[in-house]
């Protein structure tokens, strides 16, 4: 076994262990956040360096290829941004801060393992590692800022456990019918089986449920608003982004099993996608808590990403990878603002945005670009992503679904605009200006710049995604 193949995972293991030992003492917040930033940057660098690696590990259950490496890069970058964004950890209990980083890195470890797993049990284990860490993190929120973190934690566990159960049950069907748990083997038999056997279809759908849960797709979306609302702002920024990237990676791998023909599975996923968009967008319209709103918006965006996945063509998978990257950046832009507007880690509502333009022009600009990006207004990454997704779906002939998606995008513009309006045109608040640290300004600038730059010049990203997709099937 070549150690270099496993290097990004090892760096994250190191990070996990580091924070485990640190948690035994009484570390200072400053020390914790600096080492977290340092270690996650190291993870980013290592995953970029190992991008070209290819190989199989652990009895062919673990596959290193361009596909997995792309997701490792996206996820380590996501981790770095989340850690960087949430410096100060103002929403986390003081004595739990080391543990917070410990579980955060453990969850990412699970997620990046997930992107490499090509065997059902390995997939399940990585899924569980990433979920268990999150179950623990959610109630870490400071008690004085919110009272619903326990409720959020319990909800996340119960929904998570149930959906893992369903996934496992589905896997047992798939295994029973195909006598294998290796994806490469499954790929050879499933397309034919799907035409003749209904059980495999049921098995596949149940197996996908665990990832629908991570992605917060209808009907596994009920946890999202409460968990977003209950968890600390920095935790939410993590839950809202990284697990979804992992879920997209796995969904692409698993859905590509069913072949490129349109079958019942496609229609089920299409229905799920459209209902998710509609439910997410309509519910988001009436929210007052920004994190709850972002939760519903993320449900809708999960629906958009599904457009690319169920289309099942190359351009669809490429579009999903591109879109989920864009979603990460745009969502983090919004959470960046939420995090800084909230004084002591409490939740943020529309009224807290009032007069934001006067308090911090930079934050309101970041919010505007993030929100317009999520609404799909050019020239942002959100627009280019949507055009790719729509092209993929129309290529497959899903005109009706694209029209529904487009109407949804129109509806969503309303609440994104509501956020921007609140920031720019709310009654002028007498409260003091928000002082941003220099490093926070850098982060904001980077996020804004990439949202626009990748939107205008998407070719690089698409080439990388194309390379990743070409390696997905053996």
């Amino acid at each position: 076994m070549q150690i270099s193949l496993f290097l990004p995972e090892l760096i994250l293991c190191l990070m996990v262990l580091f924070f485990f030992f640190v948690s035994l003492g009484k570390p200072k917040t400053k020390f914790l956040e600096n080492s977290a930033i340092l270690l996650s940057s190291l993870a980013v660098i290592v995953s970029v360096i190992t991008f070209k690696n290819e190989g199989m590990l652990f009895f062919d259950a673990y596959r290193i290829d361009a596909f997995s490496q792309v997701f490792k890069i996206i996820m380590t970058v996501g981790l770095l941004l989340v850690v960087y964004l949430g410096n100060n950890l103002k929403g986390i209990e003081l004595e739990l801060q080391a543990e917070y980083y410990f579980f955060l890195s453990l969850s990412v470890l699970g997620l990046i393992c997930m992107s490499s797993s090509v065997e059902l049990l390995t997939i399940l284990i990585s899924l569980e590692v990433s979920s268990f860490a999150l179950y623990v993190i959610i109630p870490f929120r400071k008690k004085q800022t919110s009272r619903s973190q326990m409720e959020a934690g319990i909800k996340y566990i119960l929904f998570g456990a149930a959906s893992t159960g369903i996934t496992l049950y589905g896997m047992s069907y798939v295994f029973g019918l195909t006598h294998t748990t290796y994806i490469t083997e499954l790929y050879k038999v499933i397309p034919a089986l799907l035409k003749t056997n209904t059980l495999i279809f049921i098995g596949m759908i149940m197996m996908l449920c665990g990832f629908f849960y991570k992605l917060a797709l209808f009907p596994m979306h009920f946890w999202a608003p409460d968990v977003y609302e209950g968890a600390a702002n920095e935790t939410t920024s993590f839950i809202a982004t990284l697990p979804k990237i992992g879920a997209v990676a796995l969904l692409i791998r698993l859905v590509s099993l069913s072949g490129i023909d349109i079958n019942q599975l496609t229609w089920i996923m299409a229905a799920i996608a459209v209902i998710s968009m509609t439910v997410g967008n309509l519910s988001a319209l009436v929210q007052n808590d920004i994190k709850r709103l972002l939760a519903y918006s993320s449900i809708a965006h999960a629906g958009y990403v599904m457009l690319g996945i169920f289309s099942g063509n190359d351009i669809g998978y490429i579009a999903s990878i591109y879109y989920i990257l864009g979603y990460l950046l745009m969502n983090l832009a919004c959470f960046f603002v939420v995090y800084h507007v909230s004084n002591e880690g409490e939740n943020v509502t529309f009224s807290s945005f009032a007069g934001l333009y006067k308090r911090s022009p930079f934050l309101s600009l970041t919010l505007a670009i993030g929100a317009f990006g999520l609404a799909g207004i050019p020239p942002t990454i959100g627009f280019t992503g949507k055009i790719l997704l729509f092209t993929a779906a129309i290529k497959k002939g899903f005109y009706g679904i694209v029209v529904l998606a487009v109407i949804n995008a129109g509806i969503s513009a309303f609440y994104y605009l509501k956020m921007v309006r609140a920031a720019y045109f709310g009654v002028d608040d007498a409260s003091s200006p928000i002082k941003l640290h220099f490093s926070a300004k850098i982060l904001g600038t980077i996020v804004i710049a990439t949202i626009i730059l990748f939107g205008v010049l998407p070719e690089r990203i698409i080439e990388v995604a194309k390379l990743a997709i070409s390696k997905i099937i053996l």
Partner: protein
Amino acid sequence: MEQYLIFNKFSYPILSVVTFLPLAGAFFVLFIKNDRVLKYFGLLITLITTLLSLPLYTNFDLNTPKYQFVEIHKWFPFLNVDYIVGVDGISVLLVLLTTFIMPLCILCSWTYIKERFKEFIFVILLMETSMIGVFISLNTVLFFIFWEAMLVPMYLLIAVWGGPRKDYASIKFFLYTLLGSVFLLVSIVALYVTTGTFFIPELMNHKYSFSYQMWIFMAFTLAFAIKIPMFPLHTWLPAAHVEAPTAGSVILASILLKMGGYGFLRFCLPMAPQATMFCMPALIFVSLLSIIIGGYLALGQNDIKKLIAYSSVGHMGFVTLGIFLLNSQGIKGAILQMINHGITTGALFICVGIIYERTHSREIKNNSALGMIMPWYVTFLAIFSLSSFAFPGTNSFVGELLVLVSAFMKYKVVGFLSIIGAILSAAYMLRLLQKMIWADSTGHAHHDEHHEGDAHAHHLFDLNAREIVTLAVLTFFVFWIGLYPTPVLKIMDSSVSHLLEQIANGIKEVAPQSLHAANINF
């Protein structure tokens, strides 16, 4: 691809420079602190843009319908999207209109805008880039990017510097336009999937089956009918106009509405000729409704801005009428009418802004009897009002005449009905003029002590040099096009006849059924 294009012969990429100079200017605006410097800087940038756009007129080849000054760069090979820009006889006029109107927008905001001046100049320059971009794009994706990107600055323009109901007006504007354009996006992608290209001339050249044409025609028409706006979809316009600051109203009236008409000419007619023929009666009917209802509503308004906004609905009705009469006079008249409306209505909005700065009211009754106090002002107001109802010798007369001639040539009934609209516009404009220049109907004169607008007498001073220059420029164009429209008509001549040829060919040839959208699911 080359058969549609004449490449740029200048040593520099003239269209890109004209388009992106304002954007570059907007970037520098961020670093200027002083309001005074900002004003001059914004004015300078827009004036340079105007100057740079002049070669588009002087070097324009009148004898070809091809796209000129073309630049191509590979941009996004994965989807076969190129950065490709160029102008033909239709779009070059609109580009020139844009570059000429923008400096006036800054001039008319000189003292009108009192806060956040930096952001104002920034937004105006962003607007200029995206508006020129819409007219020069020869690629549907590029077109759509500029089309949508324009929404945000325009939204901000209304929402930040607007009147008391700016919140309502700005969001109504945004949502209406966005909902219209989402279907535009679907049809752009659908066209790409069918033909494999986003390149507009090639899309025009492609033959589509009738039902396919109907779908894309309806999607395009929805977007453009909202923008222009046509009768049942016009309700965002009065709200947006009334609440927008002067510069916003001018941009909205002079340029944004033209995008609807431009879209019809660029997309609907050449790409879906059979569908256009099929829908022609309905669209002519709706245009007539716009003309008559717009005029009728304008007749009843007490708010000057609202009156002009409804008059815009009527005028744009003439534009769509001209377009869908589908003959040379009609389309030429429509294009000319777009330019004329840009000049005249822009000027009228500037006039309203000027009087609003002095009396802080847009009500007709608070602004009556100005003839004695502001002779310069009422002179200009009279010129533009006359132009607005197409008085002979002014620019609109030529455009409206062409449309009417074309209507009478084709359907006499349509001609007679649109005459009603012309009469209505004379009625509401003369009513406005009569009340604003002379005493109002109750007999109140400007010196009446009990007049509600007591501010009247001591705050009213006549136009200053800046305002005179602003309006004089527009007056020049009113009379130039009014008395000698040949240069303008010549520019669009070959493009219009090419367009008509395309339609004629499209109607003749029966599209192969195989293209009937290969596999439609759902």
